[in-house]
């Protein structure tokens, strides 16, 4: 799930699928794509058994309520928005683990 360039690039890489029922395994998020559309597509991908990892531009994941996400979600940079480690949910959860009294 990403902007046009990110999706085109990864489809070029060979992970795109458009099956006989016209169900794609990708979503190009454009300016007029609503947050609801993005979230609905994300939930649909999550429930599909043939999808193991969901790649999503970090700036798109931020906009939607998908931050409490399963491990199968990987936030990736886009052409105009590099990844910000401070916003990465995995690293934020890990930072919260290391309290001094817990390590005694």
């Amino acid at each position, binding site marked *: 799930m990403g902007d046009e360039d990110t999706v085109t690039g*990864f489809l070029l890489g060979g992970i795109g699928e*458009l099956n006989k029922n016209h169900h794609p395994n990708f979503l190009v998020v454009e300016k007029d794509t609503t947050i609801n559309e993005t979230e609905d597509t994300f939930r649909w991908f999550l429930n599909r058994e043939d999808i*193991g990892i969901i790649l999503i531009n970090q700036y798109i994941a931020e906009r939607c309520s998908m931050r409490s996400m399963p491990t199968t979600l990987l936030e990736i940079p886009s052409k105009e928005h590099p990844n910000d480690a401070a916003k990465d949910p*995995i690293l934020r959860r890990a930072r919260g*683990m290391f309290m001094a009294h817990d390590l005694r």
Partner: protein
Amino acid sequence: MVARYLRAELDSLLLQLLRDLEELEAKRAALNARVEGWLSLSKARCAMGAKSVGPLQYASHMEPQLHVSGTQTPEDVGPHKAVLHRRKGLTRAPEPDRSPAPQDPLNWFRILAPHSLQQAQASFREGLQLAADMASLQIRIDWGRSQLQGLQEKLKFIKPAIIFPRVSLLIC
């Protein structure tokens, strides 16, 4: 005795977790630095036309050339054991395969794709390998985190039992 064993296990788990986090950070930085894919796409767009490299050219039927293997347990998963596998459809396998081999996505855009588009494909394929490694690390980190929390809970439970014998000796 039990507490000592648990502490040793906790230390070992913590060290592994820190190593995994460091590796994840490094891979994330590497992925962030991979701008050449987008640059190559822009060059291809310049060469072929602004609307010639985009969703309008996507094939009406696509089959993935790579798939993710989800059979490994979190302990086995590691960045060096890539979870991304290339489908055999692209190679000339001797066994009869009724389904057509997945088409190279480069052919969607033009029969003789410009070099910049091929470079973009190569760059994004490398990015996919990085993404697969990062996903494996995320799985291991999450597993390690839950194991760590479990061990910390066990230690908290054991701690009162360790203190109690000392109190009884004082009373005597």
